[in-house]
């Protein structure tokens, strides 16, 4: 029974709990057991709050017993990225500088999740302050990809992606600044959505690059992602960049799952040289599949997308160098070298030198460089102009097509350590996802099979216009349904079974 419970979708769990077929406490306990069994190997979680989770689940059961209305995610367990502040659980952002920090306030996203009845299991691992594409930049050690424990689960929301793929939780939250939801979702074989910027609140999300940071859902199915998207999103007066408009009808779109007559653009610039052949093979099949489902496929050129990655690695570090100035060792977090002889400035420098990891330091220095007088126009200023040109490429493209598609990542999951000390190689993992962060539009990643060359998951990225999030879900759900029919089972059924001792045999089923 326990294993069956953890393999249900979030939608199935919610209806089984609402119908009284299973209690929320049983569902939560099954997931806590799964975490106890496999997380020693996967290391998706930095902190598991069993007591708080079981109390929240009991509250759902009590509400149901009393005949009170239940929220849309009532009793559904969720893994929360450790970048969302939680008033009853530590929030570290994967950094030594915040080790053990207990925030005095709750993020809007987690508050909404609790109000929707979701049960927060704990906080998941991430690249330090969301800077990275592998979780290797976490001060607390990397998470591992459930498909192959020697490989990265992507990042920065790699802990949430690994937890969902390893059946430790049906849902996870992430944040996407340059691809940090879609890239880990793709390499873990699950669904990840970056909503339109401003569609979900940044209040209580520890800031990395404020003009880009976008909270969003990770799930095993497109419908589950939509349910979570709807529950966590919406206007928030506490975030001045929050969009004051209704959440796009993402759940209805996921249920519609139909591309008949839609115009779908294949982005010329996101493919070809530098892409893994196995990724391109599965992407090509997805294009054919969409055509067979009645979509009209059009090749579209976005000539400035090639400059999106360099522009991003100027804009994001510039914003981070400013945002991370708040970690000054004075009011909260780590303080080093305060021996009574050193000045505040010396203590601040020592603390930041000790408390931040290599990637965070590199980006702070890079951002400080890009914003320096004498360099500003050539670097930050130019990058902001590229941002305009990338946005115009999207505007032109969406004049011709309803959505754009590409591979979600240039390669499948790479090996732990392979790119750890080669920042430029690491940055390339976000090549396909960055354009939508710069332009702020919605973009979804759905699994589209295993790469024939290494047997690892490949993601299909579906990009939709600003506030056209529902379109991405509609296409993603159609692809998911057609592939499931072709394979006879969900992709994750092919993942090796995880046990406490290691990995069992590879999945018995095959999509080949």
């Amino acid at each position, binding site marked *: 029974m326990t294993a069956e419970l953890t393999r249900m979708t979030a939608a199935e769990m919610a209806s089984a709990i609402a119908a009284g077929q299973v209690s929320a406490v049983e569902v939560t306990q099954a997931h806590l057991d799964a975490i106890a069994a496999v997380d020693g190997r996967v290391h998706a979680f930095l902190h598991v709050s069993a007591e708080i989770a079981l109390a929240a689940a009991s509250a759902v059961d009590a509400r149901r017993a009393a005949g009170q209305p239940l929220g849309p995610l009532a009793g559904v367990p969720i893994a929360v990225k450790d970048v969302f502040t939680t008033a009853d659980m530590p929030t570290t952002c994967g950094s030594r500088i915040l080790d053990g920090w207990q925030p005095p306030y709750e993020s809007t996203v987690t508050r909404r999740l609790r109000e929707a009845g979701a049960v927060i299991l704990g906080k998941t691992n991430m690249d330090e302050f969301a800077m990275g594409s592998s979780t290797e930049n976490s001060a607390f050690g990397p998470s591992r990809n459930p498909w192959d424990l020697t490989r990265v689960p992507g990042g920065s929301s790699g802990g949430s992606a690994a937890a969902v793929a390893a059946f430790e939780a049906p849902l996870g939250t992430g944040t996407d600044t340059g691809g940090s939801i879609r890239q880990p979702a793709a390499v873990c074989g699950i669904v990840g959505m970056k909503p339109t910027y401003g569609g979900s609140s940044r209040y209580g999300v520890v800031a990395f690059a404020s003009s880009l940071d976008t909270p969003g859902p990770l799930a095993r199915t497109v419908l589950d992602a939509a349910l979570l998207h709807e529950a966590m999103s919406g206007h928030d007066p506490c975030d*001045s960049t929050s969009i004051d408009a209704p959440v796009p009808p993402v759940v209805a779109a996921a249920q519609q799952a139909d591309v008949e007559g839609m115009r779908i653009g294949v982005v010329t610039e996101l493919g070809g040289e530098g892409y893994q052949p196995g990724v391109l093979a599965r992407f090509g099949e997805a294009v054919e599949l969409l055509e067979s489902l009645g979509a009209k496929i059009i090749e579209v050129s976005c000539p400035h997308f090639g*400059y999106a990655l*360099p522009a991003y690695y100027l804009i994001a570090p510039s914003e981070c160098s400013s945002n991370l100035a708040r970690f000054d060792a004075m009011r909260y977090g780590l303080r080093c070298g305060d021996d009574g002889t050193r000045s505040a400035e010396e203590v601040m420098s020592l603390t930041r030198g000790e408390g931040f990891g290599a990637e965070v330091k590199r980006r702070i*220095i890079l951002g*400080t*460089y890009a914003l320096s007088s004498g360099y500003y126009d050539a670097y930050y200023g130019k990058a902001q102009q590229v941002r305009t*040109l990338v946005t115009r490429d999207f505007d032109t493209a969406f004049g011709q097509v309803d959505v754009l598609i590409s591979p979600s990542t240039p390669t499948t999951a790479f090996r732990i350590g392979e790119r750890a000390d080669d920042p*430029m190689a690491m940055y390339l993992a976000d090549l396909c996802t960055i354009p939508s962060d710069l332009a702020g539009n919605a973009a979804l990643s759905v699994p589209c099979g295993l790469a024939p060359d290494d047997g690892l998951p490949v993601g299909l990225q579906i990009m939709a216009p600003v506030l056209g999030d529902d379109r991405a879900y509609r296409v993603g759900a159609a692809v998911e349904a057609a592939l499931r029919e072709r394979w006879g089972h969900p992709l994750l059924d092919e993942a090796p079974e995880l046990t406490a001792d290691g990995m069992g045999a590879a999945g018995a089923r095959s999509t080949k």
Partner: protein
Amino acid sequence: MPITRDEVAHLARLSRLALTDEELDHFAAQLEVIISAVARVQEVTAEGIPPTSHAVPLTNVFRPDVVVPPLGAAAALAAAPAVEEQRFRVPRILTEG
């Protein structure tokens, strides 16, 4: 060479990051590669193109001027590295004293 070791040391001082000699050597070499790569943005002809600072148009946002309960001293000080007389205790900020 787009960036020197001395420049990295200067930027680290501006950023209040105490770096070791090894870190300085390592970062200087890596930042040279990164800056050469991101300098590609200069290839774009951007004459007359306005900069974008934010993905969505930003307008000033107002809220009703309603008093809400503040955090409270105990909660605000709960995570402080050092507390004295219900205040944050910080290292000296002046050189003399």
